[in-house]
């Protein structure tokens, strides 16, 4: 009995460390890809000098940040100043606990290892709840710097996060109504049963979710909190070295979370396109390459990675193209457009589901 418990704990620890390291490792990759992709879009070549065609650039940057002097401003609130980056970073990683990375688990030494750390029945709620903790780190960081530009950045960020949490959550409700469950795994299974990615009935919801997600992660064109041409770099103006690095990592981890939730909720998670059309089965290529349980596992992982990458690419693409919104305009879009649209979307979905329930 006790051995079983020990093994369960061990498996969990292994899962957690795998997920953590996966996310932590993908952040440098994301940064590198961002610089490369945006560089290419701007007729540049991006980082080129460190490692083969610049592959190690982010590693070098990270090392540089680690080795830099840790500067704390003279009149900053020192403890809050130190604490703030961690408050941002930890929720960003914790949220990955419920993200399913693939469909089928693995049997190793007779133990089943699931491709998600845990499958909460309130997975979506968990993510929303956890990721809204991150905003405290930004506000506290801006406030504790005791400097004017960070303060402005923190204020902007507070207002922005508060107003975009609402449409973000409401945009997901439509999907939840289709799925009938809030568990991340359950949502994907529901899409398999419905033979339908929820993107199709939930176009409006997807768009709202993505816009709110971009705003939630402080990315262009909603990057008001850092807005380097207005507020120098907003809430982290006074941060340097690895404390700045933590903010940076958290930002990219949050982007991953938004992309992962969108993938799960609207784009069928680990499912291939049209999972019910049997002749498209060849798309799960790993089923034919790898033996036994590894095949479906890798195929699912592949689809998740592809879908998340598409979202991340969209992030970069938008950042390269659009001007930045202004603070008051951002607020008015959030409250005057996205929120009513999200509510209307819920009502429409409800009506549609009622109608479908009666006819079918």
């Amino acid at each position, binding site marked *: 009995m006790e051995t079983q418990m020990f093994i369960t704990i061990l498996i969990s620890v292994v899962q957690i460390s795998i997920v953590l390291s996966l996310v932590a490792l993908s952040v440098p990759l994301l940064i590198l890809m961002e610089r490369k992709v945006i560089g*290419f*879009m701007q007729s540049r070549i991006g980082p080129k000098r460190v490692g083969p065609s610049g592959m190690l650039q982010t590693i070098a940057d990270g090392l540089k940040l680690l080795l830099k002097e840790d500067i704390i401003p003279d009149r900053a609130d020192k403890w809050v100043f130190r604490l703030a980056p961690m408050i941002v970073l930890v929720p960003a990683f914790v949220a990955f606990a419920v993200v399913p990375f693939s469909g089928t688990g693995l049997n190793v030494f007779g133990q089943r290892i699931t491709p998600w750390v845990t499958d909460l029945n309130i997975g979506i709620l968990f993510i929303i709840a956890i990721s809204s903790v991150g905003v405290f780190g930004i506000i506290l960081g801006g406030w504790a710097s005791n400097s004017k530009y960070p303060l402005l950045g923190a204020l902007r960020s507070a207002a922005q996060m508060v107003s975009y949490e609402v449409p973000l959550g409401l945009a997901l409700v439509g999907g939840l109504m289709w799925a009938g469950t809030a568990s991340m795994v359950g949502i994907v299974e529901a899409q398999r049963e419905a033979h339908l990615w929820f993107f199709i009935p939930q176009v409006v919801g997807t768009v709202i979710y993505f816009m709110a997600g971009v705003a939630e992660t402080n990315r262009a064109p909603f990057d008001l909190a850092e807005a380097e041409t207005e507020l120098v770099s907003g809430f982290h103006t006074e941060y340097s070295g690895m404390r700045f690095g933590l903010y940076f990592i958290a930002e990219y981890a949050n982007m991953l979370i938004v992309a992962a939730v969108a993938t799960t909720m609207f784009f069928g998670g680990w499912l291939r396109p049209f999972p019910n059309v049997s002749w498209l089965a060849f798309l799960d290529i790993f089923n034919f390459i790898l033996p036994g349980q590894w095949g479906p596992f890798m195929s699912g992982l592949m689809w998740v990675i592809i879908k998340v990458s598409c979202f991340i690419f969209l992030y970069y693409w938008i950042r390269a*193209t*659009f001007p930045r919104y202004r603070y008051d305009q951002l607020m008015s879009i959030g409250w005057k457009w996205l929120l009513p649209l999200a509510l209307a979307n819920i009502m429409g979905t409800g009506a549609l589901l009622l109608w479908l329930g009666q006819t079918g």
Partner: protein
Amino acid sequence: MKLTRFIQKLILWELLVGMMVVIRNQFRPKVTVQYPKERIPLRPRFRGVPRLRYDPKTMEELCISCLLCEQICPDDCIAIKWEKAPSGKGRVLKDFIIDYQRCCLCGLCVDPCPTKPLTAIYMSHDYELAGSDRLDLVAGRTDLHEGRTVTIYDK
């Protein structure tokens, strides 16, 4: 017409058009020049720092110490030392100093240079002027003839 515009507005048409321009540029040739490794070919008239030259045929000094360039230099960065020629007519150039710290590369000194067809002073194609000492940038006659040694970094 109004309907089309409304639909375009609804599906964020103009934003998509902008995004397509950006993606189109992704496939255009890149314009980055990796500077120390690659260099832009200079045009023939490029104005680098001024230098002196010999007559290419006879390898004699072209400069006749007429001091016109010294007079026209807006930054007073040219100093010419000369003495009377032993034969009694003309001058012999003793030293020719250009302070590259002050030179603004305007090229005015080349205009009045009376030696024809090749001007004694000319704007060279050297543009890498960094040095670790201020005196590195004061070029004497030999420097002006032979050019400053420039470390070329190829990586």
